[in-house]
């Protein structure tokens, strides 16, 4: 997410909104934004309802065996259709901003 913050202007320039979703509360998210300088929205889904709706639940993976989100990235176009998905198989390996921007350019040409 740090890398997305660093290249946020490239998303802005293309008219793309970036948001991040986790089970963290708005209070924790506000702290994180201040600490790490995030200017995009961190959305709070403490009951993991939206996380479940998107099929990206990682049951019992929290520090106290809470249900949390597994890392995943979706690119949604302006009609609400999914244009690109990244479901990593390794928690440490996340989508890079470059991949998402490339996927966006490609989906525009389709």
């Amino acid at each position, binding site marked *: *997410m740090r*890398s*997305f913050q660093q290249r946020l202007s490239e*998303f802005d320039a293309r*008219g*793309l*909104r*970036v*948001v*991040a*979703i*986790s*089970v*963290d509360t*708005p209070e*924790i*998210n*506000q702290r*994180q*934004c201040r600490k790490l300088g995030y200017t995009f*929205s961190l*959305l*709070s*889904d403490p009951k993991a309802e*939206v*996380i479940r*709706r*998107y*099929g*990206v*639940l*990682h*049951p019992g*993976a*929290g520090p106290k065996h809470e249900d*949390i*989100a*597994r*890392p*995943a*990235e*979706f*690119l*949604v*176009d*302006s*009609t*609400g*259709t*999914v244009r690109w*998905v990244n*479901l990593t*198989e*390794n*928690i*440490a*390996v996340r*989508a890079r901003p470059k991949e*998402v921007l490339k996927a*966006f350019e490609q989906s525009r040409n389709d």
Partner: protein
Amino acid sequence: MKRSWNWTLWIGFFSALAGFLTYPFFTQFPATRDFPWANFLLFGVGGVLLLAGLVRAFGKPKLYRGKIFGSILATLSLLGFCLFAYLIFFELKQVPASTGAPRVGQKAPEFTLPDQNNKPIALADLLSGSKGAVLIFYRGFW
């Protein structure tokens, strides 16, 4: 004659320790984020130095110290390496398959969630007047 201080053992141990502890540091950089080769390199350097130190300690015990503490440091380093390798090669890959996630071409499920300022944000808000939205699901900081 006073036996000399077997410094390779200590440097080896601290290199292995650094290999373990610097993992969060190296994940900040794109080059070392996806695979922690810098950490494995530190473990490798540590292993070589520890081995060299042990060979000295056991081969020339009259010249070098470290038979006992060298063995302890080497064992600790080896345990640390095993734990690290387990975390990297097994624990990090325990991710559910998520077969129910929306696929390319499907509609993204609608949602409304509070942001860091407690302001509700809906997917429709993100999409209105924009070219699209990137949704990043993450594990959280707790």
